[in-house]
């Protein structure tokens, strides 16, 4: 055994010697080929220049995005506002919802419908049952046909939907110079920028359009509306409504409240959804931790076992 290992070591030494010898030979042979490092540097530099140049050319050709529309046609992007209901652990500000409904009812509802919201959905959100019933009864709705087959009018009930200002889209267009006031039920979800856009649009009417801007007949300048020409004139002015909770009814306050209300109208399930999401996260993480523990518990005998292999004794003694 001893002799064999020393023999191997000797062979290794011989091999090492051969390697060093060949290395030295190689280095001496390449000195002539690399006689001019200048040419190598030149080639390397040229290759780098070509690489960088082609990348730059490619970026020049395809890199910058081409804008087919002017900024005025795109419209000014709304500023991000820190809405309280967009935080993870916050509900809608229900006082703001109540004020916002007042703004909708007194201002917006003369042109815009909110056709997907029934009075019953306001109960417990902005109003009490009695208040909602009283509001519903202010409107008339078609009742069932009577014995003569005539359809009479009846006062509204909680299950009735908010009345629309116009009977159909054509009537709405005819009354508004050809422009259709959109239904506001889902408007927050239906516009890029959501709440920020609605708020900016409502408060963004400048005193006068900037110099040189062309505003078509019958349109108003609003920077946030794509194309900047909007048929809706500015409607919110200070003290347009009288808030029942005494909040100063400035333009921006009314815009904020009505925007929050419209966000509620678009996703009335948000409060419940966040609560449910919280439950899912808490219960889900507890169950996940439990499952991890169970897995480790069940696998512990397998993971901790030791496999020992005792080879049979070969031959005799050493």
């Amino acid at each position: 055994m001893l002799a064999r290992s020393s023999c191997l070591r000797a062979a290794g030494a011989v091999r090492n010697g051969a390697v060093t010898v060949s290395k030295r030979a190689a280095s001496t042979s390449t000195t002539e080929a690399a006689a001019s490092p200048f040419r190598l540097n030149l080639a390397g530099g040229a290759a780098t220049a070509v690489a960088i140049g082609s990348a730059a050319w490619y970026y020049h050709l395809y890199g910058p995005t081409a804008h087919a529309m002017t900024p005025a046609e795109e419209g000014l992007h709304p500023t991000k506002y820190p809405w309280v209901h967009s935080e993870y652990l916050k509900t809608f500000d229900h006082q703001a919802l109540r004020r916002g409904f007042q703004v909708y009812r007194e201002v917006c509802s003369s042109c815009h419908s909110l056709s997907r919201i029934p009075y019953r959905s306001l109960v417990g959100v902005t109003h009490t049952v009695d208040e909602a019933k009283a509001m519903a009864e202010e409107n008339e709705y078609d009742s069932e046909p009577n014995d003569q087959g005539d359809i009479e009018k009846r006062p509204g009930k909680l299950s009735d939907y908010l009345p629309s200002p116009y009977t159909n889209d054509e009537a709405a267009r005819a009354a508004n110079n050809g422009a259709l006031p959109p239904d506001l039920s889902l408007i927050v979800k239906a516009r890029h920028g959501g709440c920020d856009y609605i708020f900016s649009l409502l408060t963004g009417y400048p005193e006068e359009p900037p110099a040189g801007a062309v505003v078509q007949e019958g349109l108003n300048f609003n920077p946030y509306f794509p194309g900047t020409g909007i048929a809706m004139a500015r409607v919110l002015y200070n003290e347009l409504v009288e808030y029942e909770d005494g909040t100063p009814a400035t333009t921006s306050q009314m815009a904020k409240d009505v925007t929050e209300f419209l966000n509620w109208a678009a996703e009335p399930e948000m409060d419940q959804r966040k609560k449910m999401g919280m439950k899912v996260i808490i219960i889900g993480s507890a169950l996940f931790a439990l499952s991890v523990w169970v897995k480790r518990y069940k696998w512990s005998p397998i993971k901790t076992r030791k496999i020992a292999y005792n080879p049979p004794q070969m031959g005799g003694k050493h």
Partner: protein
Amino acid sequence: MGFFTDLWESATPWSSAEAEAVSGGTGTDSTPAQGGEAGEGEAADKNASTSDNKDGDDDAEEPEEEEEEEELEDPQEKFQEECKESKQCSGPKHHFDECVERVTGASESEDKKGPSEDCVEEFFHLAHCANECAAPKLWAALK
């Protein structure tokens, strides 16, 4: 789920208070800040005057004209004006003012040689800057 009912109740303090406020007329005295500015009598006056206004003119285009009381200032306008004058927006403001001067000058001069120009883009940049600057202040001021 006591934790969630607590959260819910803290977010909805109106549930009991609002019902009374509605039936009992104005709720001005519920907010001390507002109660200081407008007394009881004034609040009633304001109620009457605004309802008259609404009956009189549906558009409510110029509510300022009918208001005898002190004007309510919109915090948004105030903050935006402050922001436009601030150092932060001095660049866009400078460009906008320059553009307005140029465009109005060009439209007033007789020979319109150059292409007609507008200041919408400059206006956008200025408005963007002013709004970015005013947004957190505005949200702190609004309820």
